[in-house]
């Protein structure tokens, strides 16, 4: 795809065909990845609320654990999660762990 130049870009850096930001997979910035332990997760939605990038997804996936039934689950969209760790810090039951993307050498 041609990037366009002075002659054809829309002046003022206006993006006329949003949402182009989806093309920018910011997941590559991540150093630590959040991993949700579905057995401990109480489906409180706090991680979903706090995520600054909308990278926690609420999906229609029933789950049964410790005799409790849930209609939804939370998963991480690793395409856009930057690994900031806010979800792990906010999780009231410590069900999210931050795991290094690469092993320390």
């Amino acid at each position, binding site marked *: 795809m041609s990037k366009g*130049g*002075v002659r054809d870009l829309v*002046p*003022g*850096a*206006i993006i*006329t065909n*949003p949402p182009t930001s989806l093309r920018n997979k910011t997941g590559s910035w991540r150093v630590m990845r959040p991993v949700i332990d579905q057995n401990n997760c109480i489906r409180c939605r706090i991680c979903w609320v706090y995520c600054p990038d909308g990278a926690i997804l609420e999906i229609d996936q029933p789950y049964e654990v410790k005799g409790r039934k849930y209609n939804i689950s939370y998963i991480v969209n690793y395409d856009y999660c930057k690994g900031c760790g806010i979800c792990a810090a906010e999780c009231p039951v410590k069900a999210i762990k931050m795991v290094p993307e690469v092993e320390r050498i």
Partner: protein
Amino acid sequence: MKSSRKVEPLSGNYAVAYAVKSIDVDVISAYPITPQTTIVEKLAEFVANGELDAEYLHVESEHSAMSAAIGAAASGARVFTATSSQGLALMYETLFIASGMRLPIVMALVARALSAPINIWNDHSDLMASQDTGWVQLVSTNNQEAYDLTIMAYKLSEHSEVSLPTMVALDGYIQSHTIEPVQLEDEELVRKFVPKRKKEYVLDPEKPISMGNLGDPDWYYEFKVQQVEAMERAKRVFREINSEFKSLFNRSYEPFEVVYGDDADTILVVMGAHTGTFIKATKTARSEGIKVGIGILRMLRPFPDEVVKHLSQYDYVGVADKSIYFGSPSSSFLTSDITTALHLEGSNTRVATYIYGIGGRVLRLEDALFIIKNLWRISKRLEEYSKKPVFVGVRY
């Protein structure tokens, strides 16, 4: 319908307010600062009286005033704000955002000295300190021009080939608080001259676009070069607007106009409200055979090409600058620009610099006469040229 064309005694500030009313702005964001305040006060009165149907925003600072203007312009509204001195300084970062986003905002700048020491009087330090912000800068010399240039500024800013914000400068007190007869034009005719057009890209929930985006190293550069080209086009578009204005209203404003230049031995370049004083002085000097033309610079950005054409035929020219460009080769913004423009065209014309009117220091007719005579003597080799500026009227 009855024409609203009439001559009114108006201060420069009221003249600007009448121009803004006549072009029917949609949004006014206002924060008071001396000597600008009476512009937005008058506009508040127009809005309160139902004479102008506009959203009047009381903001908490000039930074907010420009930010609100940017937001309103992005939504397609015709906007106006006004400021002076410290207010313009506080707006500084948002000035670049307005021009970078290519928003056709028009702002009146009532020129005033910058602190410190705090000073509410007129000079051009605020105007000159904002010349690199990507705004078109028009400088009026009297209240009629302030009215006319404000109207023309909207047409220029909103022109599809320009799409840049424009600052219309008038001098604090000398214009802002001095009453002169001003020809107010019929509002219907003014609105015909500056019609509201549907802008191509505006914030609209029905047709979402995104503005104010990130421009990473792969993209930023192209948008900046587009701004350079828009500035260049603004020179031609202004000339076109000027001739249309002339055919409708019978007044016209050259970006650079020389008076008493035909048989002159040299030219003194001036800008702003003291132009009249310099013209009066040069008329007086003629009785002694001292022939100096006055070059009136009305467009600071983009810098008009005509300046070099007029000045390069002389060995020496002069610049009267009402601001100080600290630490620069000449201590003068105008001398820097003019010398650069001359040199780039291969001209060897040398520029003598006269700094005056700093912090509102009165320029008496004798001072203007001194400048004109001194420059003329240099042009005749009766006085030695110096690259150093003359600080007219300063006490050592």
